[in-house]
């Protein structure tokens, strides 16, 4: 070894800085390879070793990983878009036009939108695969439930984002979607039982106090709705989704890693 000329990589590997960050050198040996996974906070999502079928794309379809990856992509592009987008009725629509017309790499909007659609699909397919392999069965039953919630959150994320361009497509899709909330039993002003919630002439559930109002911030889709959906889309729902994702990933490991025949 000593007579072999040291490469730049070797110098790098031996430098104090490199060692302080990665601890081990280029993972060449089995031990080093396992250490590379164990010692890295991101790779540590995975175990060091896996059953063989877990690396077969035919078995996993890679849809869970892609869903997470898309979440990351959407977070990054979303943060970028937030620099140029103002969630107000005056500016929202024109800011979107500008993303297409003058903002450098305004294509981030396309990546964000198509990424969002893709993410809905990948979560669905992930669910389909988990069902087909029966991987929801014990001990993974709780993680399946978490997964269902994550899928719902994905749909909510996509739905709240749908309003933000503030065009006809957006406002009416959200109007149609949110109109269902007014039919919530007891809590929506056009839901069964809502009219029973009245004391004398005081009507407790009406268009200004029902669940739809809480969602929209107004009696109809307007300025307040745009802001609410913006906050939900950018902060609230991703925040909840991240909590559930952490549980989901952690439980994969704790429930014995990827499923397989016993």
């Amino acid at each position, binding site marked *: 070894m000593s007579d072999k000329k040291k490469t730049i990589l070797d110098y790098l590997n031996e430098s104090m800085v490199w060692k302080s960050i990665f601890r081990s050198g280029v993972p060449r040996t089995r031990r080093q390879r396992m250490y590379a996974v164990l010692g890295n906070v991101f790779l540590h999502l995975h175990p060091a070793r896996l059953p063989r079928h877990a690396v077969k794309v035919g078995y996993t379809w890679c849809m869970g990983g892609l869903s997470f990856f898309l979440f990351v992509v959407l977070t990054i592009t979303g943060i970028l878009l937030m620099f140029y987008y103002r969630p107000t009725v005056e500016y929202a629509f024109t800011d979107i036009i500008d993303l297409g017309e003058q903002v450098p790499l305004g294509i981030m909007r396309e990546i964000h939108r198509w990424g969002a659609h893709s993410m809905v699909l990948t979560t669905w397919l992930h669910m389909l695969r988990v069902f087909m392999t029966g991987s929801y069965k014990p001990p993974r039953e709780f993680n399946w439930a978490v997964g269902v919630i994550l899928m719902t959150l994905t749909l909510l994320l996509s739905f709240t984002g749908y309003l933000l361009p503030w065009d006809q497509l957006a406002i009416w899709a959200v109007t149609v979607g949110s109109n269902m909330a007014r039919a919530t039993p007891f809590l929506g002003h056009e839901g069964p039982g809502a009219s029973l919630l*009245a*004391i*004398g*002439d*005081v009507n*407790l559930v009406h268009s200004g*106090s029902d669940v739809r109002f809480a969602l929209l911030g107004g009696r109809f889709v307007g300025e307040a709705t745009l802001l609410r959906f913006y906050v939900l889309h950018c902060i609230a729902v991703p925040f909840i989704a991240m909590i559930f994702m952490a549980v989901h990933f952690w439980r994969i490991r704790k429930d014995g890693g990827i499923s397989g025949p016993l």
Partner: protein
Amino acid sequence: MKHNNNDERYWNINLLNKWFAVSSILFLISIGWMFLHDNDDEFKEYQREFRKLGSQIAQTKLLEELDKVKDERDIYQKAYDNEKNKYDAYSDDLDSLNNLLVEAKGVFYKSNMDYLFFKAEADEKKYLYEAEIVHSHHNDEHHEKDGYHNEDKSKSFKYKDQYESSLIILNELKLIKEKDEKVVNDIETVIKNLRSDLKIEEDELNKYLKQVNLLEMKIQKLDRSKMSIANQIGDIVRDLPIIDFLDPYYKVNQLVVNDVKYDVNFASVPSVDRCTSCHLGIDNPDFENAPQPFTSHPRLDLYVSSSSSHTMDQFGCTSCHAGRARGTTFVSSSHTPGSKEQEEEWKEKYEWEKIHHWLQPMLPTKYTQASCFNCHQSQPIVEGGDKLALGLGLISTSGCNNCHHIETYEKENNAGPPLTNLDKKLNKEWVAKWIKDPQSFRYNTWMPHFFEQENNSSPEMIKRNNSEIYAITEYLFPNGEHKMNNSSKYIGNYESGEKLFNAVGCMACHQVKEEKSELIAEELPYELYKSKFGYENEEMTRYELLKNQGPNLIGIGSKSDAEWIYNWIKNPSEYYPDTRMPDLRLSHEEASDITAYLLTLKNEEFSKLPNSYYDEEEMNNIARGWLVKGFAEQEANEKLDNMSPEEVIHYVGTKSINFYGCYTCHDINGFEDAKPIGAELTHEGTKPVNTLDFGHIHSIGHNNYSWFEQKLANPRIFDRDKIVAPEDKSRMPNFYFKPEEIEAITTAILGFNSNKFSSNMIVENLVDDKNVFKGYSLIQSYNCQGCHIIDDFGGQIADVIGSSEYAPPNLNTQGLKTQPDWLFSFFKKPITIRPNLQVRMPSFTMFSDDDWNSVIKAFQHMDNHSLSFEGTHLVDSKTTEFKAGEKLHEFGACNNCHFYGEVKPIQGAATWAPNLALTKERLRPEWVVEWLRDPQKIMPGTKMPAPYLPTSDILSVDGAEETWGKDLVDLNGDTDLMLKGLTDYLYNIEGKIDISDYVREYFKTNGYDFNSGDDEDDEDDWDEDW
């Protein structure tokens, strides 16, 4: 292990449980506190109080209302009960009918359903058939392209037959449905008929008791004790904390006023006024006498109410009152106390404190009018805006806007006369004394005092000022002074001069008024530097201001000589081309008589005052002081040494004029291009308080309006206790304003602000022709209202003349009255319209054609009429109306007073009235009709009687035709047609139009002596004689 319980434990679990319980309870308490804190709103207190008050007021009204209906209520109630009994008697019939109806409805329900369902199917067939037709056309085109023609026109359509046959069935179903429907309707009609009498009585009763019912309903909503139990519970529940979003009774009221902007510097956002959260009765006249904050607005006719011109929806509250619109508490809405006492009271009552970091605190009530200026800039005299109008009038008359640039209220004329050719008018001694102490000559002059003020009354300053005055005077007379020329050719009969002075119109702008008094200063919030020469007796108002357009002429005889006075009144613009004094077209005789009268007005005391004197050393000192400002000391001294004494005087004169800004109000040679010296006041009203220098004065409130008041009351006060070089002393002169003037001017200054409004709120933008406002401003600055009542204001000369009959005419409805082209020619060359007046319309030779057009536009704007050209009124003398009009004219004996061309009226000169031959050129026929209908309505106090118009009753009496003539009888008392006929007749009168010469000759020979008020009683008798 033995000690199982304590395995691997450190803390005692019971202890931890206790801690946990305690911290959870604390957590719970803090959460509860948070809710309570959130619910603890000041406005809710007020709303609760208001609810009580509202229910009390409604209760009293209800009692009143019940009292009112007491007598007749029973009648209606009885009638209703009667019908009710009758109706109840039918109950068996009704029951069987209702049963029938239910059955019939069932049948109809089904047949209708059948019909509707089949109709939908037929409609679908129709669509399919249509689609088929479209499809076949499409195919035809296709085939034609291929050169293939489909010969077979009677193509078979699959849906055609289906559609057509379905129509037949549909029609059958329709017939069945209609038959069933008719049965239902018939039964319903029968039931309705049975009820109809009852319904009528019910409606009558309800109509009669409408107010009572409304009030009862209102009280039921307001007074919890009057509610049903369910409603009582609901009423409590709705306002409970946390669920008070469901349907709260107590809530923040707000109004988004899009046209009123709040400036957040980067943008302007609509104002959001929450004032009505507490000021709940503001738009309700019922709360006129309620305590604050519930009092209704004192001027609901002008503001707030939806019928007023400033509706709440469009203007909100803060557009006028300013303040922190979004505030929901007394303090946070930035109320501003109007006085120190109020401030103390508020601190006591509301824990009031000034809201820092808020640039637009509420205006104290006395200054609210300032906000009128936000929108009414170009037309500042508005109803309810008297104080602002006075303030603005004072600003232009005193010349504030000469020294201070005000973008929105620019100066139109110099406040003072030109000083460019004083050598033709005055001598140096008079000028120097005048500069030093103008009020010593004329106690109510507009010329302010620069000297003998707080910061320049020390002996050194008096000495310095003497030299400055000397230098200024010398500067103003480069070519020697005026030689007094009291040649007799300028001096006529002073007695007839005095009469003329009173009669011809001088008093419209000037007065000769010696009475004055000490100012009794009540307790003022500021320190007033009083004049030692006394003040006018009268309180200053807009109306008073009209009299002070020109100088008070006391002492004029001591100021100048016969030659100058004569020339001046004969033709003012010869001496001063830009003067606003008009030409009264005085003859030589008239002018010399008036000159003689004016020369008798002397001020002997002024002549005895000491003159300024030349003090070389002081003069050099002053010059050095100024030189040092521009040059190094040595260089300055050298320059001074090189100057001759005359040059030094000239230098000091220049510097002093510059320093005091004399040139801003007066034209002075050598200062043609100099800029105003005062601070710009365009946005003074919203200038942050910290940019106002309060100096060492702490006795006044720390807010902008107090500073303005103090500055106006004693302009030099902020130099007090400061060490300042003479050249840096504050120099704003003292106008010796009275407290009411200070208040008015402060109002105006607060109106000069940077508030933002949508362009559709600015009055100027609401008018097509901007010249209108030029017209308004000309009317104001040339004091037209000194003589005429315009827009219900003015005509002060009538007070001097004594009788409004002989005063210049009231110009209300002027825009509708005269034909614009005639009015224009009249302005250019006035002729005699009213032969019995001695006061004359002057020639405003300084007016351009544009100016006159603007004035005409302004008149038209006042009356919402804007036609520049109108068709000639053509008269058909053959119509019945015309003939009837002729007859009416005969009966009316118009020729008693009116001229017909040169045909003199029958009665004496005292009742002479305008030339009727002039009518067709001068007046608009529509106006004439209205005028004849009721002259008093248009010109209150006019001697013109309304022509007698026979009513149809009178005309239908037998033999009326003989008395009134066939034509009048034909009109059968139609007032409109009769007036039109009369008007037509007037437009047919021929004759000379301009009778000025004739009238002048007449009075020259016969004298003019009936304008004393004593005759009025006789004339009234005469009025009734008619």
